[in-house]
């Protein structure tokens, strides 16, 4: 479902724009109470049974977008509770980052086999014959599955000649590659926060929009309003995400209108990382370390360290492109606040880690950024001061697409150490990442460079994107070709 624009997407984005507008245009925020009525107007429900429920859900989304916690559904508390306290020019939200708005959850059945209308009640009805626990019988001329008895082996589904038996899992759980989603006592989705690695895939795969993450737009705008110098570090997957008119040349001017001081490409940090990892691989693999795992995807690197507690050293210690880029910005001007703008939910969490927090002040997604552009009335079509982005090479820009990280590192190894042989394996989606890690654990990936990406397609498939995958990857290709430098090691900016 991800990558298809639906009513769920629409409401999510309207909320971001509304919160950004509230922050930019007001100094007192009790009017948040009115916003659910603007986003869900009228008295007739559009999406659910009741317009009141629709507004209550939007209310929770507004709170999360301001960085506030969810409210309990069984206690009175005003929508605006905490809005004054959260209007601060610094990081505000606290864990959990990703959570279920319980009363918005449809309590979808888990791992279920159902008989569809395709059942013709055939004479042979092989479904009943193959079921090992006799859970299927013919009731009123159609096949019927007794859910209590069913052991979910799927044999009836394979046996039916009319494909009448369908299998489905709850979409959130199916999207979660680390099995973090269970149920609460009412059968609604509940996230095990010890397992969750904040990839955000459940957010964009729940058809009821019941899962959301917290945002920092509100605090960023507070910082801007206070007069702080704020610099955007934009991830290479931005290409195309902000619309056909939002070309790289327009970014400087657009961010200035939002109140930012400057924009720097995160692909610059990626270039630095690619070269550092090329050296690392050439010197240490396999003599000192069995393999080298990339570290730029935070969900993947958390999973890797968790799965291979004895091999944490094999997960690259070179700083992620986000941190490397933030360091450059802080070096130029220590008082600048750094906002990482990317496709990624997990980066919000990465930036709360103590060693990172000194460099990266805030993290937002492209979707949230789009909300800020709308709130400020930025029209890319009307911008005239073109200023090209020239910080990074095609290698660093390629980090946005699955396979790009390994490609970049291999290219630089080949250029710097022509005799070194490189073996590569890679995986996208946490399920496959996990499989690859198990192989590594078993010693079957010794000598390898391992690239892991939690989101399908790589960063361009992140939860905070606005564009279908195929188009996004074409846009990144173009952005790579536009770079003045072909290979990371030749980018003069990496020495800064």
């Amino acid at each position, binding site marked *: 479902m991800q990558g*298809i*624009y639906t009513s769920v*997407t*629409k409401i999510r*984005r309207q909320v971001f*724009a509304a919160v950004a507008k509230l922050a930019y245009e007001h100094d007192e925020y009790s009017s948040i109470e009115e916003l659910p009525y603007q986003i869900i*107007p009228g008295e007739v429900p559009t999406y659910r049974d009741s317009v009141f429920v629709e507004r209550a859900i939007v209310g929770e989304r507004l709170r999360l977008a301001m960085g506030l916690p969810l409210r309990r559904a069984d206690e009175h508390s005003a929508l605006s509770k905490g809005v004054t306290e959260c209007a601060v020019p610094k990081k505000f939200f606290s864990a959990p980052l990703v959570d279920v708005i319980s009363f918005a959850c449809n309590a979808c059945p888990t791992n279920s086999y159902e008989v569809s209308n395709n059942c013709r009640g055939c004479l042979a009805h092989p479904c009943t014959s193959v079921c090992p626990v006799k859970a299927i019988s013919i009731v009123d001329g159609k096949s019927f599955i007794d859910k209590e008895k069913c052991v979910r082996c799927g044999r009836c589904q394979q046996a039916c000649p009319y494909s009448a038996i369908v299998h489905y899992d709850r979409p959130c759980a199916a999207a979660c590659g680390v099995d973090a989603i269970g149920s609460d006592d009412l059968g609604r989705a509940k996230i095990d926060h010890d397992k969750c690695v904040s990839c955000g895939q459940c957010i964009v795969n729940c058809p009821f929009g019941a899962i959301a993450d917290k945002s920092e737009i509100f605090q960023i705008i507070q910082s801007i309003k206070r007069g702080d110098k704020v610099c955007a570090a934009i991830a290479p997957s931005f290409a195309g995400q*902000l*619309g*056909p*008119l*939002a070309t790289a040349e327009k970014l400087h001017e657009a961010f200035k209108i939002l109140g930012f001081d400057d924009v720097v490409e995160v692909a610059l940090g990626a270039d630095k990382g690619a070269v550092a990892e090329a050296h690392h691989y050439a010197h240490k693999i396999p003599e000192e370390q069995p393999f080298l795992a990339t570290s730029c995807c935070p969900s993947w690197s958390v999973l890797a360290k968790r799965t291979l507690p004895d091999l944490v050293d094999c997960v690259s210690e070179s700083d992620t492109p986000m941190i490397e880029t933030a360091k450059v910005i802080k070096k130029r001007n220590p008082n600048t606040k750094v906002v990482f703008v990317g496709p990624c939910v997990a980066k919000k969490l990465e930036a709360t880690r103590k060693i990172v927090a000194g460099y990266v002040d805030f993290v937002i997604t492209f979707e949230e950024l*789009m*909300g800020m*552009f*709308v709130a400020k*009335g*930025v*029209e*890319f*079509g*009307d911008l005239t001061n073109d200023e090209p982005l020239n910080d990074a090479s095609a290698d660093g820009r390629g980090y946005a697409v699955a396979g790009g990280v390994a490609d970049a590192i291999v290219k630089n190894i080949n250029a710097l150490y022509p005799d070194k042989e490189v073996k590569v394996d890679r995986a996208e989606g946490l399920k496959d990442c996990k499989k690859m890690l198990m192989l590594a654990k078993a010693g079957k990936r010794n000598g390898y460079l391992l690239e892991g990406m939690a989101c399908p397609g790589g960063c361009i498939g992140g939860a905070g994107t*606005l*564009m*279908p995958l195929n*188009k996004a990857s074409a846009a990144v290709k173009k952005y790579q070709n536009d770079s003045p430098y072909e290979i990371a090691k030749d980018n003069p900016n990496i020495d800064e």
Partner: protein
Amino acid sequence: MKKVKIEVCSGSECVMMGSMDIIEAIEGLKQVKQQLKLKAQIEIVPCKCLGPCKNENLAPVVKINDELITQATGDMVMSKIIAAIKD
């Protein structure tokens, strides 16, 4: 051959409200043109803010041969294009 010109507003509000997905839908329609026996040239033009978004809740906006459609969706635009080709 008949020509259908579709201007898809790519102003900020419309992009946020899904105009890129409308472009995607029209491109999908182009791919099945033969199957649907549609003999026409379909031209997609992403354009600057067309204006209506300034009033509440009218984005995304699409213009098909100068007919303005507000609160457009992919399915709506596709059926309008088919109608425009067939009449």
